């Protein structure tokens, strides 16, 4: 697209706003791009782009997968234009591009990696035309923003350019079908001992065949609809994988079979969810032309972002805070399952209310009936404390999950939750918190530790 006067003016203003933000020590990852797009709506189409662009989207794991890819690329000496600094909307990508461009609009880097919000697909893909579009998975998410997977699927699929190469999760019967006429590469995790044949979760967003709508049969399920599906009616089946992997959590290795060769990588996570993020990263890096050796060496330096998890100890008691993204039933279910699998006598504090997120409406509670609170009904979880304005709703949800009433304490004031712990033979206290309650959870953690010193 031609660089019009309007575009040049937008670029100038955007760059000035970016400089100003930096001078004021602000995280100027969104505003400069928003300004530029407001002045020139097709700004993203007109600005020069790097020679190669990779976009990563998906309901869960896109930030972690992007971080892994970026860390390895940087370690291998690549200079990568990216939007890690902040926004994954069109404005964030515009900011990343304008801040890495000359005043004439020439881009300074040859490779770009962008995390893309699923809902922004139509505002991004047609303009930046990625060489590779990666989708980690598609699940139901915040119902108010994302509606349902069919809506998000169509948003992505309808706006991906025809010549973009897709990198997709073969174990996800939904996202595996994105942009069906495009070239594609699949990654997957081979069948594991811990897989099961029946639904263990409330939600399975892919119970019916995408082609004929009959009930799918799962050869195995890993969590929710992640697994290997076949349709007894029309023969639909989960696709063959180009990067088939098998993690060994005790040996901390990830064995990848690709083009008939076996590659072994250090496994940098304990969870299956981050293993998916790691194989997403491996598939992308290999498709970009990095060698197994380069990736293996660099993965030794990569850390999974731990801000979602923290731990402190006092004597025999360990206090763990863990982000549990409220309103995202899949994310909450995964955290509840993680807690259920931890050894020892446990007490759990749930700080899942959204005190900031309901300025337009009372707090929505429907999502909790999609989340598997049933995982918290365990004999080794002796006590659950539910907090916040909607604590009675959480108590009801736990009762419906089968948790005995005497195990549940309702504490409307989040800040006082830790005072209600029993700490009787308790070995671990889990504080599962909403994004906005991160600092409240850490304060509670420190107060518990302090009270024991």
């Amino acid at each position, binding site marked *: 697209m031609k660089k019009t006067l309007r575009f040049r003016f937008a670029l100038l203003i955007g760059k000035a706003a970016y400089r100003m933000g930096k001078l004021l020590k602000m995280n100027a990852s969104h505003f400069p791009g928003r300004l530029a797009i407001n002045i020139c709506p097709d700004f993203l189409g007109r600005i020069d782009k790097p020679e190669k662009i990779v976009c990563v989207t998906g309901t869960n794991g896109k930030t972690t997968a992007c971080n892994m890819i970026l860390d390895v690329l940087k370690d291998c000496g690549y200079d990568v234009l990216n939007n890690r600094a902040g926004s994954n909307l069109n404005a964030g990508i515009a900011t990343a591009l304008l801040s890495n461009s000359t005043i004439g609009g020439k881009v300074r880097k040859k490779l770009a990696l962008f995390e893309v919000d699923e809902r922004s697909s139509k505002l991004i893909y047609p303009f930046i035309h990625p060489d590779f579009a990666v989708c980690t998975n598609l699940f139901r998410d915040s119902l108010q923003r994302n509606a*349902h997977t069919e*809506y998000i699927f169509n948003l992505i699929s309808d706006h991906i350019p025809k010549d973009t190469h897709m990198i997709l999760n073969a174990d996800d019967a939904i996202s595996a079908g994105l942009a069906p006429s495009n070239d594609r590469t699949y990654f997957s995790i081979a069948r594991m001992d811990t897989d099961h044949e029946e639904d263990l979760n409330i939600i399975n967003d892919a119970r019916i065949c995408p082609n004929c*709508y009959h*009930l799918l049969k799962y050869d195995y399920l890993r969590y929710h609809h992640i697994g290997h599906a076949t349709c007894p009616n029309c023969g639909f089946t989960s696709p063959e994988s180009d990067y088939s992997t098998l993690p060994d959590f005790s040996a901390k290795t990830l064995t990848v079979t690709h083009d008939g060769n076996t590659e072994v990588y250090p496994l940098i996570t304990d969870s299956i969810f981050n293993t998916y993020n790691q194989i997403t990263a491996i598939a992308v890096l290999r498709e970009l032309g990095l060698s197994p050796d380069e990736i293996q060496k660099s993965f030794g330096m990569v850390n999974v972002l731990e801000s979602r998890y923290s731990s402190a100890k006092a004597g025999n008691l360990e206090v763990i805070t863990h982000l549990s993204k409220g309103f995202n039933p899949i994310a909450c279910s995964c955290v509840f399952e993680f807690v259920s699998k931890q050894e020892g006598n446990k007490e759990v504090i749930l700080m899942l209310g959204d005190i900031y997120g309901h300025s*337009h409406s009372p707090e929505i509670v429907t999502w909790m009936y*999609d989340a598997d609170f049933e995982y918290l009904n365990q004999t080794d979880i002796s006590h659950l404390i539910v907090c916040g304005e909607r604590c*009675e709703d959480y108590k*009801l949800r736990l009762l419906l999950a089968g948790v005995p009433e005497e195990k549940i304490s309702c504490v409307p004031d989040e800040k006082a939750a830790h005072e209600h712990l029993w700490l009787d033979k308790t070995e671990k206290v889990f504080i599962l918190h909403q994004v906005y309650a991160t600092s409240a959870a850490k304060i509670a953690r420190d107060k518990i530790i302090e009270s024991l010193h």
Partner: protein
Amino acid sequence: MENNIIIETLYPEFANLFGDLMNTGYLKKCIPDAVFADTHLFEEPAFVSQDVSMVFMGAMSEKQQELVVSALMPHKDRITELIDKGCIFLMTGNAMEIFGQYIENEDKSRIECLGLFDTYAKRYMFNRHNSYILGNFEDMKLLGFKSQFSHSYGNNTDCYFYKVTKGCGINPASDLEGIRRNNFYGTYTIGPFLISNPLFVKYLMSVMGIEHPKLAFEDTIMSAYNSRLKQFETFKPSH
């Protein structure tokens, strides 16, 4: 009596977008001796050959709405017969649109629906509507949340479910929520409508012929309801 109660859930494999299945999940706790039947797409619904007590269906995607219209169209007369006989139908979210005249897409194309009510729906796929709702049904207050791409239009003055005191009815200009005929209740309210409205559960249990309806976890569910009701009645958006 409870042994004769049959509660059918239609298409639970997909009509479950917002925790809707906990509607029948909660009824299982309240009426443990009732028979609960799930009917999947391409199966004949239980209500075709049996006089069921209640039929439930939850919210679904737009494509799935079209599949359900096709699946239920052959049973339109039987559904009319059951409504006239007083069978309970509870349709949450966009499930209720299937019983209106048609659903109109943004390109003006239409999906002809069962035509049991005079209302029709219009989809606005780039304008998702999120809101909360409070209203009066008989001597109780009903409340809930809405999250939808479509609204219904047409005259429901003689067949609305409940009158709205906060929020909107079947469209942003209406204060009459949902559709009702005898014991057919359709509402755009999403998710666990029954859990949000325990008094309505008691009401439905009475309609089913249960003499002294007792709610599961009655103290907790009533306490949660009263707390939520207070919040809905006093809530003022901050901006």
